[in-house]
């Protein structure tokens, strides 16, 4: 159990492309626990490892009853479109803006034990998954700001 500091926009770890996880050990498990703890404390929807300064492809999502831990995640299918307001625990809320995301995504990832799984989510959880995956590429949501009406 540990609450970690959430790094803010401008820190280098948030603009790095994260590395793959290759070892599924106690340390990874601890990292995922910390991510959940930090997420719940901050009352967010999702949190990626680079947000707490760990440049690894790990993220957690907990929103609208969807709880997922994602290690080395990939979006393997996406359908539809949704446009909605988005924010981020690492970015000042004055930068919140609308972003175009897929309505439904199927994500393929490992859990902390190294087991591969696939899961399809829609609406807010889908938006959240896309947002966290962007973090793993070093991309922040407002750079994808929706330009239309």
């Amino acid at each position, binding site marked *: 159990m540990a609450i970690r500091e959430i790094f803010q926009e401008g820190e280098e770890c948030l603009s790095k492309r994260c590395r793959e996880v290759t070892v599924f050990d106690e340390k990874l498990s601890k990292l995922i626990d910390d991510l959940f703890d930090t997420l719940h404390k901050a009352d967010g929807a999702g949190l990626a490892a680079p947000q707490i300064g760990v440049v690894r492809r790990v993220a957690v999502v907990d929103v609208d009853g969807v709880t997922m831990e994602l290690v080395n995640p990939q979006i*393997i299918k996406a359908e539809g479109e949704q446009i909605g307001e988005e924010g981020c625990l690492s970015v000042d809320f004055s930068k919140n803006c609308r972003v175009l995301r897929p309505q439904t995504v199927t994500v393929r990832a490992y859990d902390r034990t190294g087991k591969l799984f696939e899961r399809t989510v829609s609406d807010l959880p889908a938006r959240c998954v896309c947002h966290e995956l962007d973090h793993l590429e070093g991309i922040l949501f407002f*750079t994808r*700001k929706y330009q239309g009406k």
Partner: protein
Amino acid sequence: MNGKDIKGAADILYKILNEGAYTHIALQKEPSKTVHLLVYGTMEKYFLLEYIVGQLCEKIKNNLKPMLLVSCYAVLFTDTPFPVVSDSVKEALSLAGKSAVNGFFAAVLARTDRTEYVLPAYGKKGYDEITYNMPSWLIGMYKKDFPDTYREIIAHSEGHFTHVCLGNAEEILAADSHAERTSTGFFVKNNATFGQLFREGKLTYMSYGSTLICEELGDVTGKKILDCCAAPGGKSVYLAKKGAVVTSCDIHKHRVLLIESYAKRMGVTLETSIQDATVFRKERENAFDMVLCDAPCSGFGVIDKKRDIIFNRKYEDILSLAALQKEILQNVSSYVKKGGYLLYSTCTVFRKENEEVVEDFLQKNPSFERVREQRYLPDGKGMEGFFVCLMKRN
């Protein structure tokens, strides 16, 4: 960061993009850490930066592009404050004698800093290129050959692992107690001791994949082997160490010198010659028990070590490489004795350079039959992407 760094990085990037230079060689004589950071950083985010720059300005001259990309990288991804970057860019432009475009650069960088660009949403044009940092034709190649797993394969192509072989197990474990044993050597965390052992010829760095290719030949003791595209000589030396009598050839003189120094360092004797593998040599006909044809290939099984191939290779290159591979394989197959073996290998994952080349060869040469064929994919745990096919001459 100062003007010199930005100019230095831009010059090197120009060489990589336009003159086909290898990144690590272009950077060899560069003492500034900042330049290294800027070059590698810009290449890691190349397609993102190109997208941003493409959105913020209509047209950019080829000779200014590297400078602009490096500057944008400095603005977005380094912790140097914007005014400092801005001043450095100004200085760099005056050093390069391009002060005339000062205003243009300043405007583009200011707009970059204010995030006046918009990145594409999922599934839109440019999204894949940015995510995988690859040109779209290349992503298309992966998608075509691996419709279901291409994402993992691309992601796994990036891992970097150091594999050593031909060494003494005790010495290796003493240098790195966490060394992980493989069937042919060890995955290690590189350190100075390994460098020392390497110089003394007590072990060598060789990817796990390369050693597995050699192992395909089975017991080689006393066998006469031709390695027809041998440079830098790793596989030749490996086979010689296992007891084979090896003849190593390469088309370029400086590459043959590489083979010789490699063999000398490892203390083995090889017969070497400068030889174009597509040119027939009468005296070699039916002369070898085994021929190893580790053909020139696009190298997309081992991207991590040679990131520049992503920028320099084009789709047409894959087609011309496949043609060359067929030509080489056809020519060297005549050197195999009756009952001998022909081993074809590449370090790429694409069907065009692998299965299709072998299929084509076997169709034209019914005297050869396929014994084993195996394609390895990058798994992120040290395995690299490569292909190997063992054929027997009847």
